[in-house]
């Protein structure tokens, strides 16, 4: 390594070289795969953005690769004792000026995101007839990277401020990036103005980032210290535990809630409100993408399920430490693995309910915002909203869907907890990838068949046969895991009954949700059943206990 720049570039690449290599391999792989899909699309639909209209989920790998590049280029390192840190402290001892350190990281970050953006647009989507607008989106990607790095490094001493800034930035820039990528689509003139403003602010943002990183290098920005101490004192007064715990379960529940529960609650609230906030974007894109208005509305119910699964992995972690395996501090507590899992499930349930309750006023505030209503200009979608607002049955339908989605958010968390409790990063990675791929496959198939109603009668028997097999497989998984939990004595008889009760509750909610969708949403029955069976609870409640026992006694 002859120069610091090369060393920094190499470290960005080498730290995650396998995943980076997979990302690079995914681009030509998807290019070939999409060409194969393209060949299947009838000629009359293939022109313009026809490919995306037929297979919108082909955008998902691109979105995932963007997220990965942001993660890699936001080079942060964990400190087990201090919690999260920002800019890696080990770089501060190198004989390189702060401006140089930040500049090289920024340059590599911007180059990486622009390269990935161009590669997907030109190598993958252009050959299948999809032409993205490039000028503004490229500038926006580069700006987003600079903003992300600035927030991650500059606000390292203020983790909560940083989280809020990142969520707000993501919610603002993500939709802008989507909207400005559609050729000739200006979203009422809002989009270009927003992009121009963002890009113009970049030099100032970068200078501030350098100053904040330089302050971190000197031990933190001194003027903030008294303010931080003051905030800490108030925070402590509000949440510091000053009384003894009545039981071990109470202590563990406090730990889970204090470290993760309230964050999960906030994330559910923001996720639900964010899904509603994004409805205009979906309504705007719904027309050009050829999506039915019901699909636009249903996405608001689907997002919390995804959020639930991600939050489940977070809840499964013992703490914020870098290692996701169970550390001795937790593992040696004289408490059974079954009880620990039940406490995690209880905290997940409380956080879900509290998150949804918190989301309701936020959602209400969003929906009465005139600009929001104005942006939902899609006529068919307005029709659906009118039915919900004015018709009594619409309100009941919405209430039922909210209740079912709340249960399913928790069920998503249960699955996430079960996977996360294995404590094995590679296994979690593989299971996540398989899960995501199966969701993408099912949703793609559903959307495709939705547009090909003439094909459904022919394939319906196959769908039903597949559903029966999936149900048998899931039920067998449930029986097997419950049997193992019982055989190994991981749950007492009472805990076993509770686990079966929880499973039955989720299953009942699933049946209710299916009935509600079949009642009102104009989607073919086999497709609704396909989605329902894929979300049907398997043996995750009991598997979580087996996974934790495996993690605890390796």
């Amino acid at each position, binding site marked *: 390594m002859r120069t610091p720049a090369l060393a920094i570039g190499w470290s960005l690449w080498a730290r995650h070289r396998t995943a980076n290599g997979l990302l690079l391999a995914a681009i030509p792989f998807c290019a070939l795969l999409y060409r194969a899909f393209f060949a299947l699309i009838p000629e009359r639909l293939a022109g313009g953005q026809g490919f995306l209209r037929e297979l919108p989920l082909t955008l998902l790998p691109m979105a995932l690769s963007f997220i990965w590049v942001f993660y890699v280029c936001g080079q942060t390192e964990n400190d*087990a*004792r*201090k*919690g999260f840190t920002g800019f890696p402290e080990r770089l501060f001892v190198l004989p390189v000026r702060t401006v140089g350190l930040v500049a090289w990281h920024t340059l590599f970050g911007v180059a990486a995101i622009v390269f990935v953006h161009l590669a997907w647009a030109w190598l993958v989507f252009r050959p299948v007839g999809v032409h993205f607008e490039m000028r503004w989106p490229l500038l926006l990607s580069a700006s987003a990277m600079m903003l992300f790095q600035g927030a991650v490094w500059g606000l390292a001493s203020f983790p909560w401020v940083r989280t809020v800034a990142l969520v707000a930035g993501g919610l603002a820039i993500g939709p802008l990036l989507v909207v400005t990528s559609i050729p000739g689509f200006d979203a009422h003139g809002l989009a270009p103005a927003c992009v121009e403003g963002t890009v113009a602010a970049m030099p100032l943002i970068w200078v501030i980032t350098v100053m904040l990183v330089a302050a971190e290098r000197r031990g933190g920005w001194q003027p903030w210290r008294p303010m931080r101490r003051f905030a800490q004192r108030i925070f402590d007064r509000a949440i*510091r*535990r*000053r*009384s*003894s*715990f*009545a*039981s*071990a379960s*109470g*202590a563990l529940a*406090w*730990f889970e809630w204090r*470290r993760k529960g309230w964050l999960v609650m906030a994330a559910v609230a923001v996720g639900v409100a964010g899904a509603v906030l994004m409805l205009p974007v979906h309504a705007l894109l719904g027309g050009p993408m050829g999506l039915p208005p019901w699909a636009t509305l249903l996405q608001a119910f689907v997002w919390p399920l995804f959020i639930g699964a991600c939050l489940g992995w977070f809840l499964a972690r013992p*703490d914020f*430490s870098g290692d996701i395996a169970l*550390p*001795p*501090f937790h*593992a*040696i*507590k*004289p*408490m*059974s*693995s079954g009880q620990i899992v039940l406490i995690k499930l209880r905290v997940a349930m409380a956080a879900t309910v509290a998150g949804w309750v918190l989301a309701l006023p936020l959602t209400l505030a969003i929906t009465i915002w005139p600009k929001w209503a104005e942006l939902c200009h899609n006529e068919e979608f307005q029709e659906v909203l009118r039915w919900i607002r004015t018709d009594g049955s619409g309100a009941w339908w919405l209430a039922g869907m909210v209740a079912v989605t709340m249960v399913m958010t928790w069920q998503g968390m249960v699955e996430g907890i079960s996977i996360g409790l294995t404590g094995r990063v590679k296994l979690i990675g593989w299971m996540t990838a398989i899960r995501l791929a199966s969701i993408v496959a099912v949703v793609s198939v559903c959307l495709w068949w939705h547009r090909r109603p003439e094909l459904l009668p022919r394939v319906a028997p196959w769908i039903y046969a597949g559903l029966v097999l999936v149900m048998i497989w899931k039920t067998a998984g449930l029986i097997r895991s419950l049997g193992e939990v019982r055989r190994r*004595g991981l749950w007492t008889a009472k805990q076993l009954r509770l686990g079966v009760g929880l499973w039955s509750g989720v299953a009942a909610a699933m049946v209710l949700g299916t009935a509600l969708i079949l009642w009102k949403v104009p989607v073919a029955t086999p497709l609704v059943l396909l989605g329902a069976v894929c979300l049907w609870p398997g043996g995750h409640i009991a598997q979580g206990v087996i996974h934790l026992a495996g993690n*605890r*006694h*390796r």
Partner: protein
Amino acid sequence: MNTTDTHSKPVIEVEALSRRFDLKLALNDIHLTVPRGCVFGLVGENGAGKTTLIKHLLGLLKAQSGTVRVFGLDPVAAPVDVLGRLGYVSEQRDLPGWMRVDELLRYTAAFYPRWDHGYAEQLRREFVLEPDARIRNLSRGELAKAGLLVALAHRPELLVLDEPSSGLDPVVRRDILEAIIRTVADEGRTVFFSSHLLDEVERVSDRLAMMVEGRVILSGRLEEIRANHHQLTLRFNAVPIVPPELPGVLRLTGAGQEWTVIANGARAELVEAAGRLGAKVVAERSPSLDEIFVARASVKKSGAQN
């Protein structure tokens, strides 16, 4: 099981325990028995398998072959029954950095019905730990003390310490750690601790086991181990052409006419054999534990290489 049985049984019994991590054999056919009420020192160099063995005792690792019993129970099958009766201080001191000392005490107390609040407070004062202090702001020594405090305050029947001296200054090590170990043992409870500081083990242990490359190469009462090892300085009449071969020799150093041997076993036989080779004993003393360990380890390693 009646009370007499429980009290007469060893606290720890390990039979034919082996553990492999990928290609590395971390534990190789370990046999170990720790009687109740003793201070048991586990010594070995870094990577010898001490922490792996301790993790098996806690049930954090499942035996791939062999058996582990703590209080007569399998720590993997009955974790609650085993863990409720022992206290553990890990080498990593993995206490949650965000907690304050008083929160850590309240949190840990909830898991142990026999938690002694008065004793916990007494230890906290002795260790000079501020209740408001955040764990992440404690020094390494203070962190070790906090770990020791939460391991001791429920008066466990078995105290397991993994490298407890790591990060402690000599004063704390001698005055606090060793005093606590002795106090626990005097109350009839058992201490099992690992260390690579042999002088410390020598000062506090009643029994010890030495580990080298995943094997227990020596185990027994400290006095017996000392009594069975001799260090002799031999003077030969003529310079031996090859290093002299003597029975029970673990380590042989020297050159010319004068050689020093550390040997295990009957002293008389050794002296007689040396006499036959034309050597006489010019000095003799009991080797230190450090010298015994080095001698034993070098024999094990050279055996492994051969």
